[in-house]
């Protein structure tokens, strides 16, 4: 177990490091001048050159990279060009909003998905279930930005019952959550259905049924218990993906999270901010996946971590 944990942590560190390096190179290869975003509009060419020198942007790429790595190990992610503040602090200011949205979307998903998926599996391929099935396909087919704009139009413009953008009251959480949850619901409920159908038709369920175990126990304890690991994996992966930025939904709803920060940082070529965002979101996403893996033995005693399956 400790060896397993050490190896997993080592792999995760490597992944984060490679990601950061890729991003470091990509942003610097991209056209666009960060100094132009930093300087006031009236700045002369000399001013721009001075700012570039100040940021170290004239140095050769390799020495920029060396400085970046050195600072990284001392916990310094640089100063955001556009916020004039430590990039890490800027990201951490926004992080709670993204986490709030991700947690509430995953919570809604979990609450709906289990009963829905179980129902779909029990009623597999009846007319009503086919209808529900097609609905979930529709749910995963609508572009999330479009769903967002439509919800906004109906519930914030035509019938102004909910705030249109920002996060000042808790009711502002409703529309973004619903928008994000629609896709997750569709994806995960289909997974629950698939897992449950195969569990319910497997021999051990037939044996248990022949020994008089109630249908209720068969469904909820036997079949669902054995579907717990894939369900948890899916929810964990979805959650990690949401932490990586619900970019589009955040842009639509003016949500003050990391996603909209990223779009702005890309537009202004704010290198330190882009790097800090990638570091924080990738680390969080990997941690979530690690926690999910560590939870497997709790759900399924057959799983032994660190042993090849």
């Amino acid at each position, binding site marked *: 177990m400790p060896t397993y944990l050490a190896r997993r942590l080592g792999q995760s560190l490597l992944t984060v490091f490679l990601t950061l390096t890729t991003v470091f190179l990509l942003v610097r290869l991209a056209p666009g001048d960060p100094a132009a975003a930093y300087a006031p509009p009236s700045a002369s060419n000399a001013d721009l050159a001075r700012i570039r020198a100040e940021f170290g942007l004239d140095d050769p790429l390799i020495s920029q990279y060396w400085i970046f790595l050195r600072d990284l190990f001392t916990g310094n992610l640089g100063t955001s060009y556009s916020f004039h503040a430590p990039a890490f602090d800027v990201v951490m200011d926004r992080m709670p909003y993204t986490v709030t949205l991700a947690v509430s979307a995953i919570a809604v998903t979990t609450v709906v998905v289990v009963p829905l998926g179980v129902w779909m599996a029990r009623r597999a391929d009846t007319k009503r279930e086919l209808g529900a099935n097609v609905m979930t396909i529709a749910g995963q*087919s609508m572009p999330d930005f479009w769903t967002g704009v439509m919800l906004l139009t109906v519930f914030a413009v035509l019938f102004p019952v909910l705030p249109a953008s920002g996060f000042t009251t808790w009711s502002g959480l409703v529309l973004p959550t619903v928008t994000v949850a629609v896709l997750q619901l569709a994806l995960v409920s289909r997974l629950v259905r698939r897992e449950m159908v195969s569990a319910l038709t497997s021999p051990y369920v037939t044996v248990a049924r022949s020994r008089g175990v109630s249908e209720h126990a068969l469904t909820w304890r036997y079949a669902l218990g054995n579907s717990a690991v894939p369900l948890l994996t899916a929810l964990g992966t979805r959650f990690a993906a949401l932490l990586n930025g619900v970019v589009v939904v955040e842009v639509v709803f003016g949500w003050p999270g990391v996603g909209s920060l990223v779009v702005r940082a890309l537009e202004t070529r704010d290198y330190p901010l882009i790097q800090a965002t990638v570091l924080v979101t990738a680390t969080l996403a990997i941690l979530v996946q690690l926690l999910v893996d560590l939870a497997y033995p709790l759900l399924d005693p057959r799983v032994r971590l660190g042993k090849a399956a």
Partner: protein
Amino acid sequence: MSGTTVLATEGTERPSQVTARDLARATATRTRRSAHVKLWAGAVCTALVVVPVALANLLPLPGANAQDLSRRRLPPLSEGHLLGTDQLGRDLLSRILHGGQVSLSVGVLAVLVSGLIGIAAGAAAGFFGGWIDAVVSRFLEAQLALPLLMMLLLVVALFGPSVTVITCVIAVAQWPEVARLTRSLVLVEREKPYVAAARVLGLRAWQVLLRHVIPNVVRPASLVVLLLLAQAVLLESALSFLGAGPQRPFATWGRIISDGQAYITTSWWLVTLPGLVIALLVVGVNLLGDGLRDRTRRRKGAGA
């Protein structure tokens, strides 16, 4: 539907308690029927979008980029403009259809490229194992942890939003899905006797892989293609929505929606209709993919 009638005639000749009605309600029949419904519904939805898009140049439509400032934001069903006009007086239907040509070609090309990369990488990883497998698997894992949309935006910012770049970017985002599936299929396939037989007959490893293993996994692997196409269309529209989509020769669906967003309170059709078109197409393609998958799964189950 035809299946039910065939069963009914058989049922009358059968001296058993199992009636045609029981057969029609049996799980196998229901599964087949719902796969059938999905296939048909999917084909209809897809055709409703794809056929007009393909025929866009033949239909008597105003030019997609022809502006008429005196006829701005006309509602749908206006004279000469079936779906109305946008903020610059361009015909919305024409814009959707011509933009759709770009969106669809990007989607199809991206799926072809990602399919090729995915099958090659997945087959190599599954067949040869060792360090090739280690490298490919690390890529597949890393991709799960990456802030995908953000990386895509970065790359588009780097190389510019041309059709080629967007296609490659989407292909890069999608190949792991094909690779993962191909790898798992090849892992099963390489243990089969015919592979050993081919090796004994003196074929080299790569010859066995190319001539015998890959042809056997291409069919099941290509089933995900339709599902990937749906994702590719969605991804392209999301990129366009964020301003990182192709601009020439025609604005794609995501861009039309993001342009129309400013007028949502007064001109609902500018956002609603293009979104409906995307949803209709993606639902259709997803249904087709799902139905095909159900059908093969049933066949496999029956054969085993």
